[in-house]
């Protein structure tokens, strides 16, 4: 059980190598966003942009913002497991 928590933590900590740094190198854009821009939908504002818009924290470098948003996301999802523990 502790091992799965540790694995999840490691995944989040290394994730900016792929999700931010690697994405910058190849000039990543979400394919559906590219399609939207092509047909002029790009300007439409999202109804809700989230607390961490596109995995960023306002005013914080992208790499750190990505990790923070990842940790919060994982933390929220893990809450039931941590609070309740395993039944069997």
């Amino acid at each position, binding site marked *: 059980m502790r091992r*799965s928590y540790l*694995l*999840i*933590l490691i*995944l*989040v900590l*290394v*994730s900016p190598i*792929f*999700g931010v740094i*690697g*994405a910058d*190198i*190849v*000039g*990543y*854009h*979400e*394919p*559906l*966003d*590219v*399609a*939207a821009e092509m*047909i*002029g*939908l790009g300007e*439409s*504002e*999202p*109804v*809700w*942009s*989230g*607390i*961490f*818009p*596109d*995995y960023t924290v306002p005013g914080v470098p992208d790499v750190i913002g*990505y990790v923070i*948003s*990842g940790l*919060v*996301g*994982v933390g*929220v*999802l*893990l*809450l*039931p*497991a*941590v609070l*309740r*523990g*395993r*039944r*069997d």
Partner: protein
Amino acid sequence: MHIPDGFLSPLVALSLYVISLIVVAYSGRRYFREGGDIYYLSVMAAGIFAAQMLNWPIPGGTSAHLVGGALDGVLLGPFGGCLAMFMNLLVRCILMGDGGITALGANAFNMAVVDVFLGYLIYKVAMRMSGGRKFLSGFLAGWLAIAAAAVACGVEIGLSPQFGYPLSVTVPVMGAWHLALGLVEGLATGFIVSRVGGVGE
């Protein structure tokens, strides 16, 4: 694959909200009635969320990351898988704005319903036909179910006049693209399933 706000017609968005909520509610009933534990939903949802953060960049400005619906379905069963995937999509939508809040029903239909249930079904059929080869069965489940989810996504945006292209464009483009990208999904699913084993194995 996460559809943003503004792509779907209100009718498409609303219909898929209704369908997805019914399937999620029914899955919740079945999963907990059959003795399912929220612990596994929580750990799987968090684990797949973390794995999804590893966005593999692909030269040309795109990337591939695990969706994990088929994997959830094979490891937790279709009902638990649907719940874990829905938790994941809900957190992404509310916290990161990844997937529009008006498109949550559609995204849940594609990734928590089609990907999970079809992935589970393909795994079961492939296991029977291949005489229990877990890697192969997991590979086929991850690969084909994500392509089917992409086709569903193509149908939804193709049916919405807000998105300027007709079905004859959106369906083949989404389907073909994810048949290619889905190979990664298939390999990851096959690898994990061959190590851990599906539900009840």
